[in-house]
Every structure is written in structure tokens, then in C-alpha cells.
């Protein structure tokens, strides 16, 4: 059994942390690292692609693998280029909710539609944290943020349900409270031959907790109380939303190349 110190030594770069006290970013990094450790994937074959925002800084520069820290919202198409160009690489995308479902929403839909073999971790803290806590597409109706001081007049959307409907092979939702399940789900995502999407509800004590009188621990406790693995429950569902086999883009492209005699 590998120890926490060994995980840190092997997977985390020695770099000052940019994360606030109580942030869930480090927990996501821990889950990704442990999932890779448990899997058959070689660390050298991993490319972690991210966009802009707090979540984008989880892999870059902290994760000790090849990293591609790109422009806002575009991590999925950058990652698609990497994967299509070299199918032997295991490509992970770490993206915040604003990055992934807001500015990058269209790429998310088409990544899912193509069922391209990427592993997308959407770190959902419900707002734009790095820029001060503005409203995001995942902020609840009526919620107060920096730019909805009178309550959010818009509505949020269920990103995981949208990705499932768009055609992804594998969709799940967990929170940072559910570390063991999350590690297993990331490992499952890497095994999946298709688009894997994991929504990770993640606490932001600085921009969100403070407004609601909660610190990081309170927010984890809130996830524990307000989620359920039972789909029939009124609480927020956590678990696997879908896991199906479908044609995958990169394999299909390479099959055509083979059939046409390309090398």
C-alpha cells in the first residue's frame, strides 16, 4: 500500500500552492493521483489538459505529468487534438464549471457527441472563484454572488444530465466528500473507451462558503447531508448516471486510416 507521502512525492510537483485554505482543489489532485496509481496507466503516458480558472491550476503546474494549460473554455478541443494525434496517450481534462459548461459549453457538447476517449473532470464550485465569485451557469436560481447581489435571476443547469443526453459513454457525479468513490470513478473513466465525464461538486470556502457562513469542513458536511446514492431520493444524486458502449471517435478515425492503407 502506497503512503500519502509517497503519492505526494510521485505525483505532486514541489510548487507553492495557490489554493485557499479549505479549497477542494487539492482533494481532486489527490483523487486523480490515486486513481492513476491504482490503474494500469503509465504516468509518462498521461497528458493533463486544462483551461482557465482555479480548477485549471489543479493539474498545472501541480500534477507531475505532461500538462497543457490552455485558454478559457477550450481544454476539450486542445485535448481532442492530443488524443487524435496520438491515441496511446491517456488524456485527462480538468476544468471548472464556468470553464467547462459556460464559455466552453459548446465544446463539451461536441466532445460528448463525438464520444471521444477523454476523461473530463468538471470541478464544480458553483461560481467563478478566481475572479472574485461571479455567477456561473451552475449557480442556483436566487443565489447571491458577486454579480447577483439581489439573487440569481437566471437558472442553473444539470451539466451531467446534459452531457449524458449529448452522447457520452460514461457520466458520473460525486463530491469531495466522497473520496473513495471518486477515486474508483476516475479509474473507471480511464478504462472507458469513450467520453468520460465526472462532475465533482467541490467546496469553495472563500467565495461561496463565506457568503453562507460555512468553512471548508461545513461544506463537506453539507455534501454528506444533502446527497444520496439513491436516484429516487429528493437529495442530489451522486453516483454513475450512465455507462454504455458507443462508437468512439479516435478509434473510428484510426480504423479508417488502416482501411485506406495509411500508416
Amino acid at each position, binding site marked *: 500500500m502506497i503512503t500519502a507521502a509517497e503519492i505526494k512525492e510521485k505525483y505532486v510537483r514541489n510548487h507553492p500552492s495557490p489554493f485557499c485554505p479549505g479549497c477542494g482543489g487539492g482533494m481532486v489532485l489527490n483523487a486523480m493521483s490515486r486513481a492513476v496509481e491504482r490503474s494500469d496507466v503509465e504516468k509518462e503516458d498521461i497528458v493533463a489538459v486544462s483551461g482557465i480558472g482555479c480548477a485549471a491550476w489543479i493539474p498545472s503546474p501541480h500534477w507531475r505529468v505532461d500538462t497543457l494549460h490552455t485558454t478559457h473554455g477550450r481544454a476539450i478541443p486542445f485535448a481532442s487534438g492530443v488524443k*487524435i494525434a496520438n491515441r496511446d496517450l491517456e488524456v485527462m481534462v480538468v476544468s471548472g464549471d464556468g470553464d467547462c459548461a459556460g464559455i466552453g459549453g459548446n465544446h463539451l457538447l461536441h466532445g460528448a457527441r463525438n464520444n471521444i476517449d477523454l476523461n473530463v473532470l468538471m470541478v464544480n464550485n458553483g461560481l467563478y472563484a478566481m475572479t472574485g465569485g461571479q455567477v456561473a451557469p451552475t449557480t442556483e436560481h436566487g443565489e447571491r454572488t458577486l454579480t447577483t447581489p439581489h439573487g440569481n435571476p437566471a437558472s442553473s443547469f444539470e451539466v451531467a444530465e446534459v452531457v449524458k443526453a449529448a452522447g457520452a459513454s460514461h457520466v458520473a457525479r460525486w463530491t469531495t466528500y466522497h473520496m473513495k468513490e471518486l477515486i474508483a470513478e476516475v479509474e473507471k473513466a480511464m478504462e472507458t473507451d469513450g467520453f468520460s465525464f465526472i462532475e465533482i461538486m467541490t467546496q469553495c470556502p472563500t467565495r461561496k462558503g463565506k457568503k453562507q457562513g460555512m468553512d471548508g469542513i461545513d461544506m463537506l458536511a453539507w455534501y454528506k447531508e444533502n446527497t444520496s446514492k439513491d436516484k429516487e431520493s429528493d437529495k442530489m444524486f451522486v453516483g454513475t448516471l450512465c455507462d454504455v458502449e458507443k462508437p468512439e471517435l479516435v478509434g473510428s478515425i484510426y480504423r479508417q486510416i488502416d482501411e485506406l492503407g495509411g500508416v
Partner: protein
Amino acid sequence: MMDAGEYFLEGNIACAEAAMKAGCLFYAGYPITPASEVMNHLSKELPKVGGRFVQMEDEIASIASVIGSSWTGLKSMTATSGPGFSLMQENLGYAVMTETPCVVVNVQRAGPSTGQATKPGTGDVMQARFGSQGDYEIIALSPNSVQEMFDLTVRSFALSERYRVPVILLADAGVGHMRERVKIPEEVEIVDRKKPSSGEKEFFDTSEEDHVPPMPNFGEGHELLVTGSTHLGDGSRDTASFSAQDRLVRRLVAKIEDNKRDIEDWEERDADAELVVVSYGSMSRPARGAVKKAREKGHDVGFFRPKTMWPSPEERLKEIGEGSKVLLAELSLRGYRMEVERCVDDLYVYDRLNSLPTVDEVYEKILEVLR
């Protein structure tokens, strides 16, 4: 891929064939007039040489995936026109900042905005140089024939790999849709990016004279840090220090500026004449014809055509401007004008929109300037 030989081809097809000949193994794009033929042709032919073709959901995604592909070591390309080129600007800047070789073909059409999709224009010349935010230098080449759609596509890949910079093939609907004879050679000049020697850790800084650091691929165990944020030589982000910003951005600019002699290229004839016609792209065809006619009629007229738009041949333009009147003939009102204006004192302009003029229309303008 076509064998070496002589063909009668459309410019966009010559561009696609040249890409394969130059070793391009990745193409991502989105349909747009008048550039689509590049993509249509590669969708059919690229897989046959082992290349990956993908049509993306938009132009932002197209250039993003091209950059991602380039970091796996493949020569990669996209093609578009004005509206798509506008969408690509942010990621084009990302390619400059991360020093990612790639080729972006812009078959320019009449703008602004949707403009006239099937009509030629060269209103994107300044955008090619200044379109993305911040300080940078970039390379843009201008073909004026189907042969040059081939040759300059090959050169775009070579320059892009040599200098780790995106290169823009700044074509226009005139040359993109023109059909004429083209010679596909047996061999073309292929340049591969500089690879690091073992143990090397600096992929984003160098003390070499050419200012070009070596570039590894993903999957080679380098634990690469590639970021559009300001970074140090090992790729690690430095969002605050003066020294990081100063050292990186000055080198990115110097990389093009100091290698200008190798990059710049032009065609000239009698450039010490009383009047020199400066023109580029498809417009340079009737312009060159008009110069020929004027000389036949005994007028002292010369011709200058930049093939490298950026970095611009500013020293040569200044020399020409010192002794000669200059007539700039271009398919736009503001295309290259500011660049020529700053180099030349006695400047006259023949600007044309929508379509190419006849040789006689340019010739009349030459006579008017000479009078």
C-alpha cells in the same frame, strides 16, 4: 497524394497537396467559403498517407486541436477565411506564447464581417500581424499563383518548425480559387523542429543565437509544463515577476526580428524606376501585367511584390521609397497600406474592392501617377 509532375489545379487543392508533401499529418477545420476545398481534399486524401483528419465544431476548436496535436510531434494545419480567422485569434496568440509550430491558412475574402464570401479581399493583413492580444511577432506569407499556393505552403511548414511559431499562409479567394498549371516537385524542403538532447530541461528559453529552444513531445517523460501564462525556461508559470515577462516576450519578438534575413522574401524588377508598383496576392497578377505594359510603352516603371508580408521587408521598401514614387495596388482599403505608408514618402494607392481589375485599369492608374 499526387505524384511529382505537372498538373492543372485549383489553388486550394495545391495548398492541400503541398501540406501532405511537407509532412503534415494532422488537419482540423471547419467549413468556410472560400477555403473549404483545402479541407474537402484533405478529408479524402490525408488518411491515405496516415494523417488524421477531423472536422471540429468551430474554428476555435480547430486551431485548439491543431496546437494540441503539434505537441505530440505531428506537423499540423488548419485553413479558414476571415470570420473563422477572427475566431482563431486568441488561440493563435496561445501558439505564439507556447511556441507551438502550426500552419494557419487564411484564404481571405471581402469583409468586414460576413462581407462577400466568394469575393476576394486582403483586409486581414493587419489582423494577421496584430490580431491577438499583447506584444508578438509572427510570420505571414502571401502567394500570388497556384504554384505559390504549393510552394509557400511547404515553406510555411518549414518556417513554422524552424522558429517554433505559427505561420499564416495569407492567401485570398483570387489565388485560392484560381486554376492554373502547377509543378509538383519530387522533393521539397522539409524542416523538423529542434529536439532536446537527453537531460535537457529548458524548453521555453535558450541562449542560442537563433532564440529557438528545443521542443519535446508529450509522452516522452519530460513532465512538460506548457502554458499560455508567462513562464520560465522550464515552463513553470510566473504571473508576477518583471524578469519573467521581460525575458520571455523580448525573446519571442527577437526570434522573428533577428532572423528576418532568413524569413523575408520578395520578387522585384527594376525597383529603382521612376515609379515602382508594390502589390501582393492575386492583385499582383494584373498589377505585374500593367507594369509590363507600361515598360513596353516606354515608361520607367518597376515592380515589387512581398512574398513575406510579416515580418515586412521594411528596409527594402524604404530604399525603394527613397528614390522612387510608389504605387500600392491592393484588394482592400486598409490591407498593407499603413505598413507601406510608414516606409515610403511619395505614395499613391490603387485600392480595389470585390474583384480583380483588368490590366488596363491598373495601367491607367500608372499613367495617372506618372503624369
